[in-house]
């Protein structure tokens, strides 16, 4: 019994010496890599920046900037260099860095531009109200901070689109089709994206949406209503390739359409109140 106690004390002692002082309960237990987003990514970016490996914006999106920073960290600390934040990598990062979750989240929620370098006092690293950053609660978000959508950065869109595109199309979808089934909302977003690919239309999202006489929601001002999460989700699906309109370039509500020309277009299908045509 005495031997067991000595052995236990020895193990405990070794553990305390071996683990760097600043290790805390950190991250969730999930492994994350490129494509992930959320609280775990925010923590990973902050800790990598604390150690000087990550030089970009802390935004909770595991993109290439996070990937290279992580690989460099893994290389320096003798870990397998794979750009994947697994248990061992997370534990090592947590052991060598500090993470003031409350402070980081406060900056993100306030929309401040900030960095989190370990060598600089925190109050010297904030530029208030100038960021486009936001917090998230993604797959790694074991201790999720909720679902706040700060400045729209809780979304990841394919590289050819921007968050501005997402916001603008979501406004159009909400203004044009908020009473329609989800499929119909994705279809309206897809029509806008199909126009972007077509030589017959302006070549920017803004140009397409604000083309005179193109969308009713622009004419009656409903485009300025704040879109809900459903409309945004519909746009994300369309940006990722879904097109329930089957390549349509136009749609109209047969009950309210005043244009006679629109009836001459070849029709494809009807979803809810909208007829989609090419």
């Amino acid at each position, binding site marked *: 019994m005495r031997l067991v106690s000595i052995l236990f004390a020895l193990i405990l002692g070794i553990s305390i010496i071996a683990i760097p002082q600043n290790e805390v309960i950190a991250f969730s237990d999930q492994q994350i890599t*490129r494509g992930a987003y*959320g609280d775990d990514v925010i923590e990973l970016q902050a800790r990598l920046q604390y150690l000087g490996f990550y030089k970009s914006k802390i935004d909770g999106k595991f993109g290439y900037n996070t990937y290279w920073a992580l690989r460099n960290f893994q290389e320096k600390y003798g870990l397998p260099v794979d750009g994947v934040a697994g248990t061992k990598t997370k534990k090592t990062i947590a052991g060598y860095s500090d993470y003031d979750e409350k402070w980081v989240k406060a900056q993100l929620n306030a929309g401040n531009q900030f960095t989190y370098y370990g060598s600089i006092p925190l109050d010297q690293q904030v530029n208030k109200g100038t960021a486009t950053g936001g917090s998230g609660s993604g797959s790694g978000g074991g201790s999720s901070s909720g679902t706040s959508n700060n400045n729209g950065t809780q979304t990841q869109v394919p590289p050819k689109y921007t968050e501005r595109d997402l916001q603008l199309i979501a406004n159009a979808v909400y203004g044009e089709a908020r009473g329609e089934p989800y499929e119909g909302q994705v279809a309206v977003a897809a029509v806008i994206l199909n126009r972007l690919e077509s030589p017959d239309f302006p070549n920017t999202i803004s140009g397409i949406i604000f083309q005179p006489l193109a969308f009713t929601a622009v004419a009656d001002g409903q485009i300025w209503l704040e879109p809900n999460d459903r409309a945004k*989700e519909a746009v994300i699906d369309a940006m990722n390739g879904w097109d329930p309109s089957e390549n349509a370039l136009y749609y109209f509500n047969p009950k309210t359409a005043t244009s006679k020309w629109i009836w001459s277009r070849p029709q494809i299908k009807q979803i809810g109140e909208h007829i989609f045509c090419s």
Partner: protein
Amino acid sequence: MKTWLVVLTIAVIGLGAYSIDLHGDKEDLQRTVLAQYTDKLTDASEKLSHLQRSVSQSLLFQDEQAIHSELDSVWRLSSEVRSSIANIPIGQELSNEWMNYLGRLGDEAKRTAKTGDYNAWREKMPQVSTNLQSLSDEWSAATVDFYKHNGKMDVWLQQVDNKNPNTNFDKVKDTLKGYGEKDFPLTLSESDWQKKIELKALQDAEITEKEALEKVKYLFPVIKGATFTVTKSSDTAPYPFYHIQFHQGIRLGYIDLTVKGGHLLSYLVERPVDEAKQSQEEILKKAKEYAKKLGMEDVAYVESRENHQAWHVTFARVHPGDNALIYADGVQLKLAKDTGELLGANAMEYIQEETIKPQTAKPIDWKTFFQDDIQVQEVKNIYTDNGQFEQRLCYEVIALRDGKTQETFRVVIDAENHNVLKVEYLT
């Protein structure tokens, strides 16, 4: 009674004043909008004349530098006229015709500057120059219509919406249509692309509505007990398909299947998603299994993106000859973050299946291709569109510039002629 009369009189006078004020505001606003439209219209008319001159001037020179300068002007002006026309309320059809004609002219100038095929330009452009002159004249005559309405936008808009062609703008539209088809006919690659997206290559036997439903239940067993509503695409749709809407408990969605062969076009389900419980690793594993279950055995993983409720995972067909990824034959899956359930599948591009012509990959020395401070991190062989509707074998390079901040680029280079086709800034 007398008091009421006074109150009523004051109210009527107040309302009248308010109404006059409101009317004045509305008129001010209309005048502002009209001024902006007029500005764009005048701008388009002026630049159209400049564009015509530039096309004509491009035919003057043999000297490469002088031609390039004119080609640049044609490209820039066509884009500017396009932008001005996009901001004028002239009716969708006329706007479309203009966009198309000017876009093609600009593309032709850009392509000529890039390829140096000046003979083709010289052969085609004399006719284009003449046509542009006549379009410019017709356009100038038509714009008079716009100014006729004494600032009354509603009268103008009624005219735009008129079914029977009765304005000079309608004449411009007809002329443009004729010129567009003659001056810039569809290239072979464009017409192949058109056939591809209209699924002309599908030659399978037609399936019935009942067979379509059986296929849906087989592919997506999670909704086999759903209530289905099946409709067929309109007769004027480019390809016939079954549009199957379903409802099962919390799940609401649709599936589109081609009538020929019952191929999956797309599937999407909407349901509430609980807190994330699936790890990224589990999601990717499940996505690969779903792709297999849907019969897409010849695809490989490309990328994934996590969002609020779901993961979007992309796959692309692997070329059987050289294992390069064919990005145009992509498949997208959407998986719920709570259970990993398949919430969507998009196989529209996958079933269009590209025809790949044999091509040779010539090696590139990255040290001389990129600047000294660029590190090449990954190189992948892929097939992608070169902007002229041709699938080209390319090197997809992930390059890193490690300066004050790290910058990552995705550079796509034609493997045969080493032209840079795309550069994307990755974050």
